[in-house]
Every structure is written in C-alpha cells, then in structure tokens.
C-alpha cells in the first residue's frame, strides 16, 4: 500500500506579497514618526527633551496591552475549540506582547529618572506593567517548556486565560495601593498639536509594526506545525513500507 503525499503539505516558502507591502508600510510609518518626533515636536516645557520617550513608550504600552489581551482571548478560543491556528496565534501574540512589555519596562525607568529623579517608583502603572510582564514571561516559559505536547499546550493556554482576570484585578490593587504616594508630575502631557500628531503617528506605527511581528511569527509557527505534520506523514509512510514485505511473506 503506497500513499502519495499531496503537494498541499509543502508550504510555499516565499513571503506573501501583502505581508511585504505591510512590512514596508510599517517601516515607513516608524521612520516618519521618528522623524516627526525628532524634528517637529518641541521639547516639553517641564521635562525637556526626555519627554520625547513618551511617544514610543505609550505606543509600546498599547501594543503590550493589546498583544497580551489577544493572547488570552486566543488561548481561550484554543481551549474551547482546539485548533493549530488558534494556538499559533496565541503564541505569537504572547511573544510580541512580551517584547513590547520589555520595551515599556526599559523606556519607563529611563524617563522616570529625569522626570521623577529616580529610575523606579512604585507608581501604580509601573507596578502593574511589572507584574503583568512577570506573569506573561512565566506563561511564555511554561509554553516553551511544554514543547509540543498536547497537555503542555493546554496548560499554557489555561494559564494565559487565568492571566487576563488576574491582570485586571492587579490593576485595581496597585492603583489603590499606590494611592498614598504623592502623584508626581503627570508627565508627558500633550501640549500642542505637533505633539498630538507625533503621539498618534507613533501609536499607529508601533501597532502596525507589532501586527507585522505577530503575522511573521504566526507564519513561522504555522510553517513549523506543517513541517511536523509532514514529518508525521513521512513516518507513517516509512512504517507502512517496512511492513509491506512482512505482509507478503
């Protein structure tokens, strides 16, 4: 019995055109927003030039929030109706979310050094980002440890789902907890229209790049999954071939 492998398992390796166009657009957006921030926006009256961190810092925070929320939602979908694509999406969102979480965590203290005079304060939003990042990294490690076992995948997904309500409650806890602290300068206020344009340009540019990263990672994971499926079919074929002489004899 010989089974022919259909061509559909061989994934085209070239990157789809739409993705390339999208990558170029995001790159241009990022360049445009950087140029705008550098050339057009004035320095903040209170904080000086360091305020220019604000644009990408907040953009990264948006990307992180959206990424991690999407990761939880996709994990939930994967638990309710398991599918390889939901799993791949959940993993890509989680990874990209963690990357931007680190961006927020590193740019935040640098900004704080200037505006608050120290790298770290237990300001509610900083604390929230730190805790959520720790949680997301733990889930990421869990998913990496689990490799491709079904149980591991489900456990990772379940933990990602747990992370969403936990983060929501952490948000309240740290807000009330930090309530006693003096609210230092509400830094990075938008003072004029150039700043507003810079802000939205940066947000759009980062979200677009984040989406590109998710799409690229998603494609990579899908390719990996299909490679595994192909290896499995090959193994089936080899096993059947080994049997053939045994059956005839």
């Amino acid at each position, binding site marked *: 019995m010989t089974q022919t492998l259909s061509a559909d398992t061989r994934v085209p390796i070239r990157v789809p055109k739409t993705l390339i166009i999208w990558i170029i657009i995001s790159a241009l957006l990022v360049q445009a927003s950087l140029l705008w921030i550098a050339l057009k926006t004035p320095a903040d009256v209170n904080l000086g030039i360091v305020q220019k961190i604000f644009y990408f810092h907040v953009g990264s925070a948006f990307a992180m929030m959206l990424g991690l929320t999407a990761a939880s939602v996709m994990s939930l979908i994967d*638990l*309710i109706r398991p599918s390889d694509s939901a799993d791949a999406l959940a993993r890509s969102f989680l990874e990209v979310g963690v990357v931007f979480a680190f961006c927020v965590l590193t740019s935040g203290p640098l900004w704080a050094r200037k505006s608050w005079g120290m790298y770290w304060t237990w300001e509610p939003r900083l604390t929230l980002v730190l*805790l*959520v990042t*720790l*949680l997301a990294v*733990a*889930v990421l*490690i*869990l998913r990496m*440890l*689990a490799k491709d076992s079904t*149980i*591991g995948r*489900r*456990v990772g*997904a*379940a*933990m990602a*789902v*747990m*992370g969403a*309500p*936990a983060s929501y*409650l*952490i948000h*309240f*806890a*740290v807000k*009330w*907890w930090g*309530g006693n602290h003096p609210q230092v300068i509400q830094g990075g206020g938008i003072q004029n229209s150039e700043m507003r344009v810079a802000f939205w340009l940066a947000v759009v540019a980062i979200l677009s790049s984040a989406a590109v990263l998710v799409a690229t990672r998603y494609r990579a994971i899908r390719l990996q999954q299909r490679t595994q499926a192909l290896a499995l079919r090959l193994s089936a074929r080899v096993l059947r071939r080994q049997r053939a002489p045994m059956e005839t004899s």
Partner: protein
Amino acid sequence: MNTLRLTWLLLRKDMQVTARSKELVGVTLMFAVLCVLVFSFGFLQSGAAAIRYVPGVLWVTLLFTSSVSLLRLFAPEEEGGTLALVSMTTSGSAPLFWSKVCLQLLFSALVCALIVPLVLLFFDARLSNVGTVVAALGLGLIGQAVVGTLCAALLAQVRLKEVMLPLILYPMLAPLLIAGVKVTALSVTGVESPALSNWLSLMMVFDLIFMVVSPWLYGRATQP
C-alpha cells in the same frame, strides 16, 4: 448535590491520608515558623518600629507556606496512579478539584492558626478590629487555595514544576497579597479607613472570579 457528596468523600479520604502521614503537616508548620523567624532576622533592628512589619511577615509567610503544601497536594494521586481513575468514576474532575481546594484551605487555616498568634507575639502587636482581619485572612486563603490548586494540578505534568509554580502563582496572587497586607496594616495601626471595605470587596471579587474560572479551566485542560 451529588458533587457535594463526592467532594466530601474525597476530602475525607485526603484527611485520612494526611493524618497518616503526620510528617507532612509537621514539616509544613515548621516551615511556616521558620519563615517568620527568618523574616524577623531580616527586618528587625533595635529601635525600629517592629509593628510596621507585621502584615508583610504574616502574608508572605502564608504565601510561601501555601506553595510548599501545594506541591504535595496531588501526591497521593500521583503515587498510586489514581488520578484518571477518580475522575472517571466521579463523572468529571469537579469533585476532585473541590476536595483538593478544601484540603488546601484546611491546611492553610491550620498554618494561620499557628502563625497569627506567633507573629503578634513576636512583634508585640495588637489587632484593633479582629473581625476584619479574620475576614481578610479567610478571603485571602480561599483565593490562594483555588488558584493554587489549579496551578498545582495543571503544572503536575510539566517539567520543573517546583520552580514554575511560584513563578506563575506569585504574580497572579499579587492582588490578594496587596489587599491582605493593607487590611492587616490598617488593623494593626488601628486606623479606621473607608478603604477597608474597598480592599475586602477586591478580595471577594478575586475569589468569585477564580471560583468560577478555575474548575472550568481544570476540566478543560485535563481532558484526554
């Protein structure tokens, strides 16, 4: 009703098993006492107001001790290979899950009963409104037990589970820890604050959410 009966049967079995391995309870209590001691060495300096450290020492000890007992929570099932057997006779994993939550709760209540007087004694502190603190402890321990049981059950099949459990558990329990410490601090210093009810309701919401989410996730993630 049936779930309740099955949960009770499994819990009674767990209590029997725990009673027979007395070492486990003793070791866990010992660990809790040592935790308090180590924190005292770490924080106390002569002349400093010791009372400030009471809430922190109390809650962190409870958190650490719970993760120690959580790692042993499913040991009877793992040793005897009864996990699949039990969930296949009790029409699902809910009775097993809730019996383990109750067991963990009993465990931490025991630890609590030992630790709270000890900490108050060591730090020469007095609680101004005992009722609130008891409520906070109750809510905190319920939340810890529910989330902890889920994590312990799911991580049982994962490599490096001893390390992974705190890694996942501590950030997830952060709201309970913060709220518990705040309530205890307000009570120890005797300040009447309207924030008190806020913190208690936060803990209550935490418990309610995870009491719904956790058993569902447990059932989902352990399906064949």
